[in-house]
């Protein structure tokens, strides 16, 4: 990355904005003409200045529509969108002081790289000398020096991505919007670009809203993740909280992988609950209000389960063993249920072969308990 500490100086005038969504809904008419589809359903969200927030969810969950509502390409059916306490719900997209990085990059194919980046400044009628200087600085920042006279199709995918980012950064927006910007890159470049974008965003301190369906990307980049499903927010919080304490079965299943075990609450007390799991009695900390006798679902991540040659433990049958180098993945059978077990340290223990049986162990503090209603 050619970015230097000069980055902060390049965009010294950036004013990170506060973005607030209040009960925002968007209805689209159905193709059949009968009734409407609620693409975004009463979404409320506050994004602090300089914060990097990711909207995450499966396709059709409303994340892209939410981004388009923020950018102004769609108008909310109800609710308000505020930028720095001003209602911008119905302000046209060109007057919102935001810039968007598109999935397809949307570079202007008939213009050179320089003119692409200069576009926003020229629209603002920036003085000619200023334009040249600022474009040059952003091109340097993005490691695009010397490519100014190229046309977009003469650049590699990663370079095109950088031009798209440079074009948005140069106008010093209050909010930067990303619509799945890395989905067109190959796996290696994607990993590289996501850390570049994150570094840049942190250094420039720009409020950013990022849409993706890739949970790893979301985990790697965000200050806060907003998990969406069916137009509604399922859960929002920092990556670790979302992973460790998913609010619903959907979130647990969508972020990372999870095994679900049905169980019944035996005793409760002081935000703790006692359950029997895999033949062990465990006392787990819980956030949901649960009473003895309630049915619940325990979320066990594959890496918290461990296979041991211990006949005292609940016995499982190894159905499949996949040796992946740094990890070994097992699919094991427990009664009628199949579970995934990931051994992150195969070199320390032994590798269990298919068809054998083993005991299944877990650490109680890594188990997350969901009330059945959330499951």
């Amino acid at each position: 990355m050619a970015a230097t500490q000069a980055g902060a100086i390049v965009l010294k005038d950036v004013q990170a904005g506060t973005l607030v969504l209040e009960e925002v809904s968007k209805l689209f008419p159905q193709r059949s003409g009968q009734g409407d589809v609620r693409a975004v359903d009463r979404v409320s969200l506050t994004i602090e200045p300089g914060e990097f927030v990711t909207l995450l969810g499966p396709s059709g969950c409303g994340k892209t529509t939410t981004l388009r509502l923020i950018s102004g390409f769609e108008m909310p059916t109800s609710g308000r969108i505020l930028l720095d306490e001003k209602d911008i719900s119905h302000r046209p997209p060109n007057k919102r002081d935001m810039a968007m990085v598109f999935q397809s990059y949307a570079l202007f194919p008939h213009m050179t790289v320089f003119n692409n980046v200069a576009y926003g400044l020229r629209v603002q009628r920036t003085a000619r000398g200023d334009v040249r200087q600022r474009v040059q600085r952003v091109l340097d920042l993005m490691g695009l020096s010397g490519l100014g006279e190229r046309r977009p199709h003469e650049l590699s995918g990663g370079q095109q991505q950088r031009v798209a980012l440079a074009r948005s950064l140069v106008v010093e927006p209050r909010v930067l919007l990303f619509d799945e910007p890395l989905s067109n890159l190959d796996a290696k470049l994607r990993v590289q670009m996501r850390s570049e974008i994150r570094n840049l965003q942190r250094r420039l301190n720009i409020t950013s809203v990022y849409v993706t369906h890739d949970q790893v990307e979301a985990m790697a980049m965000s200050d806060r993740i907003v998990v969406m499903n069916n137009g509604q927010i399922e859960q929002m919080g920092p990556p670790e909280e979302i992973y460790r304490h998913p609010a619903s079965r959907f979130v647990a299943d969508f972020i990372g992988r999870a095994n679900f075990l049905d169980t019944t609450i035996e005793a409760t007390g002081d935000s703790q609950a006692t359950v029997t799991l895999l033949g062990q009695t465990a006392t787990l900390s819980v956030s949901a209000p649960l009473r003895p006798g309630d049915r619940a679902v325990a979320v066990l991540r594959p890496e918290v389960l461990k296979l041991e040659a211990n006949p005292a433990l609940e016995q499982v049958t190894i159905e499949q063993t996949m040796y992946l180098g740094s990890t070994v993945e097992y699919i094991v059978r427990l009664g009628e249920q199949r579970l995934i077990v990931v051994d992150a340290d195969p070199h320390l223990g032994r590798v269990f072969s298919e068809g054998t049986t083993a005991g299944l162990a877990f650490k109680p503090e890594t188990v997350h308990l969901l009330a059945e209603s959330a499951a």
Partner: protein
Amino acid sequence: METATPKRRIAPIQTLTRNRRIAEFWRIFQDPVLFTGLVLVVLFVAIAIIDPIYAMVKESLTEKGQELFRHYLSSPVYQRIIRNTLEMGLLVAAVGTFVGFVMAYVQVKVAVPFKRLIHILALVPIISPPFAVATAALLLFGRNGIISYGILGERYDIYGLDGLTLVLTLSYFPVAYLNLRGMMQALDPALDEAATNLGASRWRIFRTVTVPMLIPGIAGSFLLLFVEAIADLGNPLVLGGNYEVLATRIYVSIVGLYDTTAAAVLSVILLVPSLLVFVVQRYWISRTSVVSITGKPSGTPQMIRHPLVVWPLFAAVMTVLLLIVLVYGVIFAGAFTKILNVNNTLTLDHFDFVINGYGSEAMKDTTQLSAIATPIAGVLGMLIAFLVARKKFTGRHALDFATMLGIAVPGTILGIGYLLVFNGPHEITLPIVGTFTLIPKLTGGRAVFGGAIAIVLVYIVRSVPAALRAGVAALSQIDPAIEEASISLGADNFGTFRRITLPLIRPAFFSGLIYAFARSMTTISAIIFLTTPGTKIMTHQILNEVENGRYGNAFAYCVILIAIVLVAIGILAVAVGTSTGAEKTTIEGAA
């Protein structure tokens, strides 16, 4: 907005739908340029297209009109005219589509020499002044025809259905050719490869893959040719003989009998099949299209090289091209000889007549009016395309449909509509202020500018649909995110249109302009009732010369007309440019 409480309930669906409509218009209204554009477009469509058609239909439904309807539909004479019209339309559509298909197939799928030449020659009839092909055919294949009598010794009677089918097919097959060629090129060669891979023979692939995939294109071309044929006026006037069709009958009603009601009634009868075809084409064929255009087809199509396939097809194509060369050769030769085939002395008299003599006025007027109409039609076409393809508002489909009516209705119908609507001034009387003239008298004697405004309007109306379609097609190739990126960077709608959209659809704009100019220069049926002694139009002059048997003058007009169109294309290519600048070019030094 400020008073809205955060906890407000979601409004019922119906209110939301209405609110959305209002919101859509409000968004357009907020942008003054876009709003002005929309208002202008709607006014144009309402005044120049809808109103004349409506007036004509209304005229046909008056008491006298209804009487005439009953008379026409029961009289054997008129029944025959209607039958003739449909018969001719179907025949031309079938033959023209077949010829177009063969030409396109040979061009795309068969290994034959001279492909570039074949392509150019096949397109020549697109710039054909009316009457030129018919008159040339008459001289080639008529009773004293250079070929029919001169070579074959046959006193052939070309007048009637056979002659009309020949000239109309020659005039309109390029439409089918272009249409089908485009679709064939878009066919993914992988389909052929997959079929071959599964063991299918060439013939089997043709029957089971190529033709079924092209059915929408074939049907579309058939319908288009049908409409063109039944609407054509110039050719039946020259070659119809006793074979009367609706278009010529309408012409006679106005020019010979001064009976606008009769013309209106006949026009409505002609309008029915035209509109029917238009609607079918629009809502059925465009929906069943199975050709997926995914940008560049992958792989190179395998050419057919079997000599038993190649050479017969090549011979067929050459025959058609020979006919075109003969027809245009006669036009050219006829323009430079005293009386072709009678007195073949070379002369420039005909050109003198057109350039310096009586015809000079028509030449200037026509070029001038076409030059005025062309940019307006081009810009309007792109503007409507932009509105229809990129903006959401209730009624955009109606706007598209109404604009397309400009070409879907036969030209004669538009002409009569104009006569009815613009024969007097449109005035509005306001209290106190007095009476204003909204639209002055545009047609007939003492019309403003000798009727030039009405003619320019008709030129525009007839040209906008092609520009609209070209624009919509070009826009659908452009990722909307590119325009959104511009707006996201702070540009307004107009700025985005000017800096991003327009440059990217430049090739479509260019072809829209060319089409508009060529169409304006060669149109006859729509303006034949609108010319006045004050405004002379070349196509009308050509008709006069043909009717008086002065073929030399007519041909000289045609040659000059073709020359003007070619020069204009050259000028437009330089002025507008044919590329977007986004094309992939190898830049020196670039890897």
